[in-house]
């Protein structure tokens, strides 16, 4: 019996999304399951964005604070370091200092940070709020305006605050991250709500919510797989935006990324364990469908890039 490779054909395709203006990057665009280059073309590599924030990273664990010690005092030098020294393809600026429980910075202050960072870099910028839905609906509006014309990604619009954020992203011609919590139906519902406001689904990026290795990654993994299967096999257009994995934010707060080897000798080297925790979380979610990965540690990014080199 002659053997034929059991390949499949898919009805749908993931939208291709381009971000930035001077040195734009593009992700998505494939009509096959992640890295199934034996079934069809994979036009773009996943894009890895370095995460920085508007306030110094005092809340980051030592292992991931150290590589940025020389530059993380202010977001502009931090962004330039990522672009120039680490050759970042994109930068994700998290406006965590606007959170009411933190520095409680105003939307105007956030907008100024965004303008300053954009003035210093020419790679694409992803602008993230502090994940306080109420505050984000003011902060991200101001940030969208400050970034007008730079084709940024604004995130994250959630069900409770999407209206103002969608309107601001639309008015200022940005891309938008739509985040729901680990449920394919909620994700679909939010994408529908957003497109009903007149926002193009081709400009959306879906965030089904990241979870770190050991802390619910299996939920993120399976929701992403299901969304991608719906996009490809059922040709469900509303599920066809590319997906983002907000990796670093979730990884660097877990115990395995912080506990010292002297406290837990059976866990081995903290440095390598923590880096591997971030790289593995990213790799697993990339295999289940994420095309845009937001990460922190330069060594984790390097490892993931080497992995992508082998996969492509």
């Amino acid at each position: 019996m002659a053997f034929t490779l059991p390949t499949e054909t898919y009805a749908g395709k993931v939208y291709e999304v381009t971000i930035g203006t001077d040195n734009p990057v593009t992700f998505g665009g494939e009509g096959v399951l992640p890295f199934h280059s034996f079934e069809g073309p994979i036009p773009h590599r996943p894009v890895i964005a370095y995460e920085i924030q508007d306030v110094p990273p005092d809340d980051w664990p030592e292992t991931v604070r150290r590589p940025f010690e020389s530059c993380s005092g202010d977001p502009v030098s931090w962004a330039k370091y990522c672009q120039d020294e680490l050759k970042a393809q994109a930068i994700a600026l998290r406006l965590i200092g606007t959170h009411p429980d933190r520095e409680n910075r105003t939307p105007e202050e956030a907008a100024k940070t965004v303008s300053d960072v954009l003035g210093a870099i020419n790679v694409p910028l992803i602008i993230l709020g502090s994940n306080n839905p109420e505050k984000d609906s003011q902060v991200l509006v101001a940030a969208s305006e400050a970034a007008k014309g730079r084709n940024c990604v604004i995130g994250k619009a959630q069900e409770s605050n999407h209206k103002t954020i969608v309107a601001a992203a639309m008015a200022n011609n940005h891309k938008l991250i739509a985040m729901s919590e680990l449920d394919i139906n909620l994700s679909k519902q939010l994408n529908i709500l957003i497109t009903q406001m007149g926002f193009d689904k081709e400009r959306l990026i879906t965030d089904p919510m990241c979870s770190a290795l050991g802390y619910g990654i299996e939920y993120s993994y399976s929701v992403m797989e299901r969304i991608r299967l719906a996009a490809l096999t059922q040709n469900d257009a509303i599920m066809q935006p590319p997906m983002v994995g907000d990796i670093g934010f979730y990884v660097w707060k877990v115990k395995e990324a912080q506990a010292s080897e002297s406290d837990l000798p059976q866990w081995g080297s903290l440095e390598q364990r923590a880096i591997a925790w971030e790289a593995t979380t990213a790799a697993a979610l990339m295999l289940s469908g994420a095309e845009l990965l937001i990460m922190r540690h330069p060594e984790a990014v390097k490892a993931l890039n080497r992995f992508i080199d082998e996969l492509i």
Partner: protein
Amino acid sequence: MALSGVEIFKLLPKTNCKKCGHPTCLAFAMKLAQRQVSLDLCPDVSEEARQKLGEASAPPIRPVTIGSGDRTIKMGEETVLFRHEKRFINPCAFAVEIKDTLPEGEVSRVVQEVLGSEIDRVGQRLRIDAILINNTSGDGKRLEDTVSAVYGMAPQVPLIIATNNPTSAEAALNIAKDGKPLLYGANETNFEAMAKVAKELQIPLGVSANGLEALSALTEKLKAAGVQDMVIDSGARTAKEILRDNTCIRRAAIKKGLKPLGYPIITFAQREDAMLETLIATLAVAKYSSIVVLSSVEKWKSLVLFTLRQNIYTDPQVPMQVEQKIYKIGEPGADSPFMITTNFSLTYFIVSGEIENSKVPARLAVMDSEGLSVLTAWAAGKFTASKIAAFIQESGIEKELSKKELILPGYVAILSGAIEDKLPGWKITVGPREANQIPAFLKGRN
């Protein structure tokens, strides 16, 4: 190809005798089609039907075991491509490679690493499952020496003996055959002799070929030669090849019922770069490998891979649970906060993580709610005032506390009055609804 329930029904005696424990033959046939019962339950099935059904009802991926005793590694029996459809059955095994060119001291160091690799995570004992001894030297004597050294130190650890020389294989296997090792293995040129060795010693055989077509042809030849238990290697070594071949093997076996590829897969993930090796192993865990061979087993790498394997192989329908008890976070004193939540593992991880982030030492009571999260458990009647009160009372925790105060998750604020009624002398405080508000909440109390 799998048969439908109706097709199976046609082959059954149709007597509705109930001896199988099912009300009708049709009901039994339906269960058979879903592979939930064994045909052996039917005492009256004809030999012809048994043969037909046996072929069809055999799992699409043959179950194969290596090792013996409580460290036996079970592989195969998988039924789906995506874990949301149904649980992945047999978690992949991690094996570390020991080359027979290694100096003796190094060999024993690696064996000790394997023996010391066991850790406990969410109630499961996790460890490096096997050792692959590679006949890198090409010398039969060195292979024998290394096998006897390893087997002498750790007879309980399942072995994979990797050589393509049947004579060396036989000599080495004779040392360790009681441990039921895997022989890896057979290829185009040596398969007849290897088949003979595997049959004689009744051990499973690893089979390697270049590509899926050659591989399926070779497993057919081995099957014809009487070898049943095989573990297959398509020659895939790069990440791209591993993803392609493993996906195609799993699909061919499950969706096309292709028996020649219906065997567990062995994947060689070794890289010079330990971080990259971890990611290649990540791919192998997520994408269908049954044995993942590593070049080294540093503790950090093992922890990452054990955790990933546990996550990927979790039953998507059954939430992971942690043990009901009162956990200490930091070093709580008599006046430290005392909080309660449910035993859904994610709830526990997130709540305990946020308490840790707050740097405020505390006690966290984790109550058995059958693995449901707080709101779901409350709605399902598993996290009620009387159950909480009973748990707190039976725990005897009040002896350790200077003031009897319990912090309740904000989502079940509604229970605070009822708990106060049932726990006389206790003050019930309503805490935050979301775990990420815990640090601000705890710091605000100080």
